[in-house]
């Protein structure tokens, strides 16, 4: 039956959705005064993570399209990183780090992709299961969200590009939950990702209306939540002791929503959002979809609706093709380059393409004034992957790059090479420090990395 679905799939060769999907009225969307309310003394810091699935175009025998040549300030950008050249002074490429917890241990050969994703921001070896007992660790973005996200309407945003309902696309004996998100609120609570720009938009801005109307709706929701908590209480009393624990998890989620509504209520009425036109759905083309998702992150930062984001440019093992850049093989298949120089070169095109899109986002951040600088000056992004050489599913010498000024705490223009096997979690811990979140330990971390702040600040 040819009943058109609102949720759209992405195969196409047609160009030209860009205009239709561009977000209108961007300037008027930003509540007056928010972006400029900060002062140099108390800058708002944002933290973001961008994840490339299926590693990067490199092997361990001489072909490497990711790692820059040279160390320190004297380094030459690699082919994949070349699109980031305009932001070189805000870019720190990190080499040598390993995510040990992504390795198999006793879990068998299966699951390298899964654990690459699940451990990337947690530094924890996830439990091999498809059942209710999924277990990972609280991820770095959520630790940050609990601190710097306290004041914003949404503590964090979890975004993705791929669909997550395909059958048989997860690794045996691992729940798809591990592959579908980077972000875990607690060791048992994965944060679902969203790939539909319209839904993200509505989460950020509601579905329109005047601020008074939005406030009314927030109040109704608050009283509904209150009443639902009563329900859960009642429910809990009708259950046995073991099951009561589970209700606790739901209560936590509902309470979190309650807190968010309270924040909206507190901030409500002061800013007047115009009646907005929403993005209509999922663009069919990869680049348009990615740009729209970056647009939404930019908007969320700019309007200070969130300060923490994670974004997956794809799911591990995905078989997306990129006909617009001449890649007709599935992404995962191509990543198993088998050391074939032609295939590596082709795969490098994809990496460059991804970096071009990221650079497009950086440009937006760079040209948006924020406090005493730009949004880019006040943000810190980690751009990278959970695999280095995808053909070997290697979890060491991971491709990682930090971009952004972290409000004076990061200087760029460097390629830092750390001793092999240094845990990646040390970098994550360092990043927390850079955005002003104190933490001593994350997963298997052994300490912070000596990445010094910008001198003179």
């Amino acid at each position, binding site marked *: 039956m040819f009943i058109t679905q609102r949720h759209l799939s992405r195969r196409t060769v047609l160009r030209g959705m860009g205009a239709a999907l561009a977000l209108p009225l961007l300037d008027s969307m930003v509540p007056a005064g928010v972006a400029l309310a900060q002062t140099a003394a108390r800058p708002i810091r944002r933290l973001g993570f961008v994840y490339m699935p299926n590693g990067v175009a490199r092997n361990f025998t001489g072909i490497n399209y990711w790692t820059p040549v040279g160390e320190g300030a004297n380094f030459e950008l690699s082919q994949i990183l070349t699109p980031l050249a305009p932001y070189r002074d805000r870019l720190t490429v990190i080499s040598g780090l390993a995510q040990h917890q992504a390795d198999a241990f006793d879990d068998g050969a299966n699951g390298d992709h899964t654990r690459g994703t699940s451990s990337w921001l947690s530094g924890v070896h996830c439990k091999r299961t*498809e059942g209710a007992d999924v277990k990972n660790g609280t991820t770095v973005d959520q630790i940050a969200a609990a601190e710097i996200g306290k004041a914003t309407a949404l503590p964090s945003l979890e975004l993705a590009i791929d669909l997550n309902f395909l059958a048989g696309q997860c690794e045996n004996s691992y729940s798809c939950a591990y592959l579908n998100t980077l972000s875990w609120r607690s060791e048992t609570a994965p944060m679902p990702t969203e790939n539909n720009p319209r839904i993200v938009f509505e989460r950020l801005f509601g579905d329109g209306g005047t601020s008074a109307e939005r406030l009314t709706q927030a109040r109704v929701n608050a009283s509904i939540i209150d009443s639902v908590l009563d329900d859960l209480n009642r429910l809990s009393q009708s259950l046995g002791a073991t099951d009561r624990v589970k209700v606790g998890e739901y209560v936590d989620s509902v309470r979190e929503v309650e807190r968010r509504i309270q924040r909206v209520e507190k901030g409500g009425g002061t800013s007047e959002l115009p009646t907005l036109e929403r993005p209509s759905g999922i663009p069919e083309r990869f680049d348009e979809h990615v740009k729209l998702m970056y647009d939404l992150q930019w908007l969320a930062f700019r309007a200070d609706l969130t300060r923490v984001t994670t974004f997956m440019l794809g799911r591990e093992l995905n078989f997306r093709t990129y006909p617009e850049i001449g890649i007709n093989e599935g992404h995962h298949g191509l990543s198993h380059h088998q050391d074939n120089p032609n295939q590596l070169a082709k795969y490098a095109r994809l990496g460059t393409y991804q970096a071009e899109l990221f650079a497009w986002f950086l440009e937006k951040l760079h040209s948006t004034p924020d406090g005493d600088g730009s949004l880019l000056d006040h943000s810190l992004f980690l751009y990278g992957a959970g695999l280095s050489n995808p053909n070997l*599913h290697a979890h060491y010498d991971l491709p990682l790059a930090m971009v952004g000024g972290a409000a004076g705490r990061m200087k760029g223009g460097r390629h830092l090479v750390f001793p092999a096997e240094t845990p990646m979690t040390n970098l994550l811990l360092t990043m927390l420090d850079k955005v002003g979140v104190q933490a001593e330990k994350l997963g298997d971390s052994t300490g912070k990395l000596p990445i010094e702040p910008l001198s003179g600040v």
Partner: protein
Amino acid sequence: MRILAPKGLVCAGLAAWIAAVPANHSTSAAAAQVPAPSPVAANRATFERYCLTCHTTRQKERGVVPVALDTLDLSRIAADAAVWEKVVLKLRAGVMPPAGAPRPDKATHDGFASWLEGELDRSWTANPDPGRTEPFHRLNRVEYRNAVRDLLDLDLDVSALLPGDDVSYGFDNIAGVLKLSPTLMERYLSAAQKVSRLAVGTTPRTPSIDYYRVTDDLSQDVQLPGLPLGTRGGTRISYAFPMDAVYEIRPRLTRDLNESLPLYTEPQVLEISIDGQRIGTFTLPGIGAREGRGAPPPELDDPPSDPPATPPPSPGQAPARPAISQIVQTVRASAKERQSRNRADERWNLRVPVKAGQREVVITFLNRVSALDESARLPFQRPYPAGVNIPETRLGAYLRSVEIVGPIDATGPGQSDSRRRIFTCSTKDDVCARKILSTLARRAYRRPVTTADLEPLLSFYREGSSTFAGATADKKASFDEGIERALRRLLVSPEFLFRVERDPASTPTGRAYRVGDIDLASRLSFFLWSSIPDDTLLDLAERGQLSTPSVLSREVRRMLADPRADAFVTNFAGQWLFLRNLDAAVPVQSIFPDFDDGLRQSFRRETELFFDSIVREDRSAFDLLRADYTFLNERLAKHYGVPNVKGSYFRRVTLENGAARNGLLGQGAILTVTSYPDRTSPVVRGKWILENLLGTPPPPPLPNVPPLKPTNKEGAVLSMRQRMEQHRANPVCASCHAMMDPLGLSLENFDAVGKWRTLGESSAAIDAKGRAPDGTVFEGPTGLRDMLLRSDRFVPTLTEKMLTYALGRGLEYSDMPAVRAIVRDAAKNDYRVSSLIVGIANSAPFRMRKTG
């Protein structure tokens, strides 16, 4: 064993009929059917001779085998049931002993497997372990949609409201991973607001805009299934108009790769109709029109004036014949004209009053293309838009997207199906509100309601109606507002969003108990309908009759005959057979230039209709593999090379008995989702068969697999079989590929989009010899089918998948005796699908539960 009556549940008569045995049919059947035990000694000899040559502790320590079996005690099989179930699986799948190792004769082999099964079943029957479903089972996105549909008579595409769900064990309804995050709770809140507003039909703050996109690779040169004869292309949208109001429908056309509207010689007439009644047309003029006959071309900065459509009649009123106005342009297409022409559909906005309710909006082109042109100009089935140096292959204008905006200038809530469903009384007072809300709550919570359930709903009703009453004195509007508010509250109630199964009060951990009739009603309805129980089921459950075997079996059959059972096809079969992955299948254009969305959708439809027919006609499960019929339309018939099928609608077509196309393995959907975009993959196909038809997934590949060379040393292209031989050369790969590849290779006559071929990539004739895991050799798709039909694993695998889906949890070794009991019982009915489904509904894991 001890059976506990579920205390605290509402069914008064429940305790009366609870028998002292679980799932009575399977117990007795099991006892009767299990072969008499052979002497332990004989089996021990078999075991030692054929298993313990390799599976020793020593070999395990050396890493040669993954499991040691020499520590097991054959006189106490039940003590190591988990390991023995694995042994049984390997034996039944014919995977062990491995090819090349000494094998016992078939009788000894099967006898040993049967003996093990008998021992395991006997011990299980004495003390059945039904397993434990999660206490909370969140409705997934599909179930939420269906629940809203069945509760409120409102069919919404909730993919725009809720995120998708994680998959475990191959299905997206696994309770353990359906968690509730704050993000999701927020989505439920906002979905509840929208759903309740649409259902009750109150004026929204702002008109909503719903956007529909037609996929680009769908050919719109032909009449599409479900669209009127004499039309081509376009789309059909089932839309819930929330109120009596004006709505604006905005169709837009596709461009080519240069963002231009292609030029057509004939005028392109787009017709919009609602529920079969034409409400307007838009015309894109042809460029063949003679100069002077039409209006002058519009200037660039002067877009076409108001929509050419006449104010249409409201559906439900007498149709007035609308004038089809035409904007005719001159022949010359200068750059300026072209630009202006590109804006032709800019203001194709049609405003039309529509009465509230679920209606079908059809936007399609009147077919003005002559048949001669069509055959002469159509190089491929797939449409190709013009780009730089690429000619346009599309014959006429294509519809790209449709927006429906509204309600505008609402005149009232109207009489939608939803309102009829909700407002079961008309007094607009508290008594009526109570009646409405208790009816809704009973269905939504799927159980009898208590005062405690109603209290919060009534409180929101009062809050909503009083808030509104302050603003106006309209009693009706204020009543509606109250009901809407209460409904909004109900839709986020934990007992709506979650199926809650409570342990009987004060019961020790790990005890098996009978699931009460009320919970059973939900288990059945979510299994077969992916939705809430209807009143019939709830009534039976409340009276404690549902679990009576005759009633249960009658109800299962009634449910399977109901249209709601479509959900079983789309959700169960859609995931078991990977049909859902079709959307992501993108065969490479240069190799498969005909593949388009029309074919993709036809593939899906064929397999859905086929699976549906097996279920509804209650055929043998084996017919899934061997049926001599399928469902085809012209597009698909052409693809398969089946003659004399004309038109876009699907019809049942009888195939030659025993032909390669017979059954699931000859269907394009499955052959495509198990291929790469550019070629077939015997590995993926073999793995799919092992996993989904034989239930023995191979272990995953090791990292750093050496490359498969597509050519030999001399540079000649290797055949797929020669390429696959490379797997066998490497002993690490060989252990698994020796099982997968030969299965997949037998399907090599079907290319990566399921078309029949006799020559492979290397241009050599295809050699479709295959080999079963037990070493049996066969030839081609028919040989593969015969092998599967003879296999001991096909029906058990289907049963395991179905039981996983029915329970919403992964299966444990302790579920295997129940699976075998279901299969044994179904054997008596030629493995008819209903006997498998009734068997599941009667099985211990479905009817019972262990306390936590």
